[in-house]
């Protein structure tokens, strides 16, 4: 959710049940501007909130020239003092998926310990994986962006240099287009793009359609598309990461997503549909 439009966009996603109180909003308005100046970001986005047992993390994301690759995540407890999160590497992801279970605690220096007994031949080895909550936070934010970040089709363009940038002439999806799930795209490296047939490629423009559509997600039905606020806003909620809400006002360029939740993936999804 863009920091410039924070005040009214929060009203649009409030249908999911979460808002920020006035104090937090004003603090964010001030601190995000300072953040943008200090880190020389092109754009700062308020990414969301991860609820921990003792404390909640507020997460902001700064975007550079290439919107998909130049991303830096920062976290804070009081919306004023921001700390940089390390970028998530593959080894970190593996460690976290093995070591960290349960809810976030709220203390970035908390260490999760996981004991596993590996049988190698005849010996039993106990392997202890230790993961700090800070790396778990970085990995969670990265995974959520990878798997469920959404943008409407046409909002971002791929320039001939390969840079992904905001499309300034995006006028918004029409009301009928906003009802179809294939007009919404994942904002991460495409995995299924090459599998489309040539017939389908004929309709698409390479500058706009360089991302995966949501309708290709497995299991089908892992997105909930609704019109809220007296049918004014189109709201997409992810059922895989409960708490991710994407909003778009049709016929206007307003769109964005926010995650407010406990940072755990919903692995029971196939049972629940």
């Amino acid at each position, binding site marked *: 959710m863009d920091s410039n439009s924070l005040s009214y966009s*929060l*009203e*649009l996603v*409030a*249908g*999911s*049940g*979460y*808002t*920020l*109180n*006035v*104090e*937090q909003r004003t603090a964010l308005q001030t601190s995000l501007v300072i953040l943008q100046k200090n880190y020389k970001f092109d754009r700062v986005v308020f990414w969301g909130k991860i*609820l921990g*047992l*003792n404390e909640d993390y507020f997460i902001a994301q700064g975007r550079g020239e290439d919107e998909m690759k130049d991303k830096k995540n920062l976290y804070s407890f*009081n919306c004023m003092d921001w700390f940089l999160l390390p970028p998530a590497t593959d080894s970190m992801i593996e460690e976290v998926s093995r070591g960290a*279970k*349960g*809810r976030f605690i709220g203390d970035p220096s908390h260490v999760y310990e996981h004991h596993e007994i590996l049988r190698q031949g005849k010996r039993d080895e106990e392997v202890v994986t230790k993961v700090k909550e800070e790396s778990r936070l970085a990995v969670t934010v990265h995974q959520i962006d990878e798997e469920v970040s959404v943008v409407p089709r046409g909002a971002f363009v791929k320039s001939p240099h390969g840079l992904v940038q905001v499309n300034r002439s995006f006028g918004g999806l029409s*009301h009928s287009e906003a009802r179809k799930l294939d007009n919404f795209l994942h904002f991460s490296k495409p995995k299924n793009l090459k599998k489309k047939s040539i017939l389908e490629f004929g309709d698409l423009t390479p500058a706009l359609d360089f991302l995966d559509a949501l309708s290709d997600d497995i299991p089908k*039905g892992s997105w*909930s598309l*609704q*019109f809220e*606020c*007296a*049918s*004014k806003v189109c709201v997409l*909620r992810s*059922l895989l990461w*409960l708490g991710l809400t994407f909003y778009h006002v049709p016929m206007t360029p307003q769109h964005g997503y926010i995650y407010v939740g*406990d940072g755990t993936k919903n*692995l*029971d999804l196939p*049972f*629940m*549909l």
Partner: protein
Amino acid sequence: METADGNDRSEQSLEAAASFKSFMLKNSTKSNMNLYDHLTRLLMKVMDERPQNVVDVCEDMSLDVKQGLFEPKQSTLRDLPQTTAAELLAEQQRVLFTRPEETDQEEELVDTPIPNVSEIGFYLEQAGVGLGREEMQRVFLALKQLVEVQALMRCRFWGKILGTERSYIIAEAEYREGEEEEEEEQSEDVAEEEEREAESQENEVDPPPPSSFKPPPVVQKEVIGTGANKYVYFVCTEPGLPWVKLPPVTPAQITITRQIRKFFTGKLDRPVVSYPPFPGNEANYLRAQIARISAGSQVSPQGFFQAGEEEGDEEEEAPRDSCEVNPDFEGIPVPEMSESLSTWVHHVQHILQQGRCSWVNLSVKAEEESPEEEEAEEREEEPDEAEPEVGPPLLTPLSQDAEMFNTPPWSSKMSSILTSQHAIAVLRSNLWPGAYAYATGKKFENFYVGWGLKYGGEGYSPPVPPLPQKEYPSGPEITESLDPSLEEEQALKEALEEQQAAQEEVEDSDEAEEEEDND
């Protein structure tokens, strides 16, 4: 001579003018207009309008005149504007804003069954929870409409449950006494009629052999107004749409809801496909989840409610099922409320394992149902009397709530650190993600907004189907045994022959003895 020349010239000029005029009157092949008419219209327009600097704007005026000639071709079909869903909803929501003219101002000020939803919305926003200001206002007006239509005694905004296609907005209400009993009687009559029909059908045809399967006794649902059915719930998908009443909940539904994990879709008549099979459709599932969430997460500051007066012996350990507002409640300071959990208590009864709030002894019920079969009592081996299930009594503090899956059941904090003198205490449930409670001074409120599911730890494993049942009891007549081998058969034959030979000898000796006797 000059006049003739003059006449000739004027004739010539007249002829030239006439021919030029006919040239100007020639219609253009492209646009079917001619220059003469066009210039006439242009000059008439200039005469009428008299603009300034005419010569500069005369080209534009010429274009305007040409454009003005186009007549819109109106087809005889008129466009029917299609009403979009947004417009339909707006029409329905407009009703919310109409103010009935008959009510007196005085009545409205005195009789307020609805709480002050705007104030609640303000405090919830401080806590970081809520539906947004406009939506809360719409819900407020919809609640007012509900109270007027249904004549309720008290009504509260319970919360919102999100669904995959649509969401539910839920209101908790209490009827004035004596109003909801009629519906229960109607449903009983219908059930009796169905039974009579079934019986009459059976008497006409030879009934098939009855099965000896006795289904486990069904736990009776609680009377409306007590236990899990204490309040009545109304739902709607958008404020402004008509409210639908949810049916009362049965213990069977609660026990099965505890074992399944399903999203809500937003349509009340959708069947719930699950294992174990859910007895009912989505309306029942919703009601059961609401009952569980209320029982698990509705809390209040300690002292706000006090135990109701108990009728009957105090020695009976019947659980309290009602509590009254304490008029002497002073209010607990906010920092205390946000630090310790013992300042909060549950004010809704806990639901037992059975699915009810008050335990009912099923074996006693079986005796009552068959008063005629007195012999059956002797034959049936009654199992040991089941021990009554006891849950934590009403008004237990939260510090006694059990931890599940290594997470504390509640997280509490103050809503603001910078202005802590006016902050409120916020309590968030970790077992039911989405359940919130806030308290400040003498005011408190509970609110739920979420997917309607309990926190289940790492993974959900559905219950396993039961083992296949034996069809018949195994006895010696039907157990298989091995055919005897050849040696065994021969051995048996020899044994039999020996026996026969022995018998014949005995008989012969008997006959011989008899003959001797007869002699």
